[in-house]
C-alpha cells in the first residue's frame, strides 16, 4: 500500500543506520538516581554511551558564598546522601583546619566511629544494589536492617537519619548517650555475622561471578588519568587512601589495611568494598575501645574550645554575658573568619571528597568548591561500557557507586 502515510516523524537517517538508540533515564529504575544515558546499541552490545548529568543541580557552591560556615553543613548533607556524616565531618575538618582549631582526641575517635559507620552504610547500599542489578534481591533486603541500625545510631546522636547535619565545628553538639553506645555495641556484635552471610551469598556465587568478572574493567593507569579515587581506584590496584596519605581526625592512631584489587572490574570493586566494610568494623571497634579508655572528666569531652564557632550551652546563654554574645553572633552569622585558602580532603565513601575554601576574611566563604569524586569518575563510564552488553552497562553503573546528589552539587 504505497499511499499509506507515515505519521511518526523519525530523525533523519534513523532507518538506514544499523544501531539502536536507547534512552536510559533520567528516571529509569535501573539508574538509581537522576541521570540519563543515551546508549547506542548494536543488538545488545553497547557501541557508545553518552552521559547527561545536572538534573538535580542545586547551586550549592553559589549558595555557600552567602552563608556563615555552620549553615553550609546542611548543604554538604545533600552531596552524597548515602553517607552524609562523612561529608559533614569533612566540612567541619576543613573549617577547623582554616581556623587552626585542634580537636581533642576523644572527639576525633567519636568522629571516626561515625564516619566508619557511614562508610559501611554507603558500601552496603552500593554492594547490595550491585546484587539487585545482577538479579539477587535477598542481600539488599536483608542487610537493610543494619543500615537501619546505623541510622538509629545517628538518630541518637544528632536527631536525624538521612541528611544528618551531625556535629559542629569543633566537635559534636552533645555527648553520645548511653543508648547510642548500647546501639553501637549491638551493631559491633551482630554486624560481622550478617556481613559474613552477605559475603557467602555473593562472593563465590557462580552466577554473580559470571555477571561481574571482567565487566566494566579499567586499568590502574586509565583510572588515575580519569581521576578515580576511593574503592574504584583501589579495585584497579592503586592503594591510595586519604585516611593514610593525608590523615585527619587521628586516623594515624589506628592500624588498618587498605584492600586493593587487580583488574578494576565490577567484581573487584565489589570485593574491595566488602573488605573495606571489615576494615571499617575494625576501626569502629578500636575507636570505641579508645573512647572507653577516657575516664572521669576526660569522658565528658565532646567538643573543642572554640567559643566563636561552637554554640554555647543554653543555660550559659541565659546566665553569662559572654555566652549570650557568642550565641547571638553565631546565630546571626556575624563571625568574621580568618582570611586564607585551603584544600582539605577526606576519604568519602566513594572517593576523595575535597573542600576548596577561599576566605577573604568575611562572614561567608569567598569561594567554596566541592571536589565531588563521582562527578569526576563518571566520565569514564562510556569507556568502561563500550563493547559490553547492555545489562553489563547497568551493573557497571551501580558498581561505580554514583550518587546523583553528589554529582550535580
Amino acid at each position, binding site marked *: 500500500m504505497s499511499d499509506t502515510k507515515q505519521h511518526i516523524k523519525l530523525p533523519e537517517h534513523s532507518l538506514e543506520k544499523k544501531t539502536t538508540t536507547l534512552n536510559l533515564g533520567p528516571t529509569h529504575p535501573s539508574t538509581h538516581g537522576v541521570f540519563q544515558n543515551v546508549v547506542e546499541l548494536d543488538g545488545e552490545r553497547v557501541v557508545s554511551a553518552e552521559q547527561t548529568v545536572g538534573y538535580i543541580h542545586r547551586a550549592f*557552591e553559589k549558595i555557600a558564598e552567602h552563608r556563615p560556615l555552620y549553615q553550609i553543613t546542611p548543604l554538604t548533607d545533600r552531596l552524597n546522601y548515602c553517607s552524609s556524616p562523612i561529608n559533614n565531618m569533612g566540612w567541619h575538618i576543613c573549617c577547623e583546619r582554616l581556623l587552626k582549631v585542634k580537636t581533642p582526641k576523644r572527639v576525633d575517635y567519636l568522629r571516626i566511629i561515625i564516619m566508619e559507620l557511614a562508610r559501611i552504610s554507603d558500601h552496603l547500599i552500593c554492594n547490595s544494589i550491585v546484587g539487585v542489578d545482577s538479579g539477587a534481591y535477598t542481600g539488599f533486603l536483608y542487610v537493610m536492617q543494619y543500615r537501619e541500625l546505623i541510622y538509629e545510631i545517628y538518630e541518637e546522636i544528632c536527631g536525624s537519619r538521612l541528611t544528618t547535619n551531625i556535629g559542629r565545628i569543633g566537635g559534636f553538639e552533645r555527648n553520645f548517650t548511653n543508648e547510642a553506645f548500647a546501639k553501637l555495641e549491638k551493631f559491633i556484635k551482630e554486624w560481622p555475622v550478617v556481613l559474613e552471610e552477605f559475603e557467602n551469598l555473593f562472593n563465590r556465587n557462580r552466577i554473580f561471578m559470571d555477571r561481574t568478572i571482567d565487566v566494566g574493567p579499567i586499568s590502574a593507569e586509565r583510572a588515575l588519568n580519569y*581521576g578515580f579515587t576511593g574503592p574504584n581506584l583501589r579495585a584497579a590496584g592503586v592503594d591510595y587512601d586519604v585516611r593514610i596519605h593525608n590523615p585527619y581526625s587521628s586516623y594515624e592512631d589506628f592500624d588498618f589495611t587498605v584492600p586493593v584489587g587487580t583488574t578494576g572490574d565490577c567484581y573487584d570493586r565489589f570485593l574491595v568494598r566488602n573488605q573495606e566494610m571489615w576494615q571499617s568494623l575494625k576501626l569502629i571497634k578500636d575507636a570505641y575501645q579508645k573512647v572507653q579508655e577516657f575516664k572521669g572528666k576526660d569522658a565528658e569531652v565532646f567538643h573543642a574550645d572554640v567559643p566563636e564557632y561552637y554554640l554555647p550551652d543554653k543555660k550559659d546563654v541565659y546566665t553569662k554575658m559572654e555566652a549570650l554574645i557568642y550565641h547571638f553572633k553565631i546565630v546571626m552569622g556575624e563571625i568574621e573568619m580568618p582570611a*586564607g585558602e585551603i*584544600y582539605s580532603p577526606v576519604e568519602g565513601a566513594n572517593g576523595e571528597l575535597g573542600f576548596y575554601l577561599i576566605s577573604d576574611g568575611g562572614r561567608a566563604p569567598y569561594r567554596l568548591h566541592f571536589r565531588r569524586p563521582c562527578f569526576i569518575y*563518571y566520565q569514564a563510564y562510556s569507556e568502561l561500557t563500550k563493547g559490553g552488553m547492555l545489562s553489563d552497562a547497568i551493573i557497571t553503573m551501580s558498581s561505580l557507586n554514583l550518587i546523583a546528589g553528589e554529582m550535580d552539587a
Partner: protein
Amino acid sequence: MALTNETIRQHLTEKFGEEIYDWEEPYGLLTFTSNKDLNLKILQFLFDDPTLQFRFLTDLCAVHYPEKKGKEIAVVYHLHNLVNNIRIRFKVFTDINQPDVFSAAALYASGNWMERETYDFYGINFIGHPNLVRILNADEMDYFPMRKEYPLEEQTRVDKDDEMFGRD
C-alpha cells in the same frame, strides 16, 4: 629522596625561571601562578618530569575576583604526586573579556568534565576542549552564574511582593 616544596620550587624555577611567580605556601600547600599561555607547558612538565610526577589532577575550578582588573578569573589546578604523596596548587589568571585558557583535557581525561563545569559557571573558553558545552546548567542559559555580578537574593530585602509567595 623525598620531594619537598623546596625541591619542587627549585625544579620549576630552573625550567621556567621568572615565568612562575607568586610563590606561597598557605597551610603548607605549595601554590604558584603563571601566565595563562604557559599553563599547558607547565602542566605537561609537571606530568612528565621524572622527579615531579604530578600525574593526578585532583581538582580544577575557577574563582572570580572582580576587582583585579585584567585578571578577573583565576583557574585553579590542584595536582597530586601519588608516588611521593605531595600536593601543589597552580593558578593562572585571565581577563574576563577574553577568557581563553588552553584545555588540559588531553593530558588528564578527568579534566574533561571539570573544564566543562568551569565553563558552565564562569564562562572560561578552554581552547582545544573536545566538547565544551554546559554540563550542570540548562543548555539555553545565556549567563555564567558563579560570577560575582550575580548575587543571591539579599536575605533582608523588604521589597518582596508577599502575595507571590502565598502570604498576604
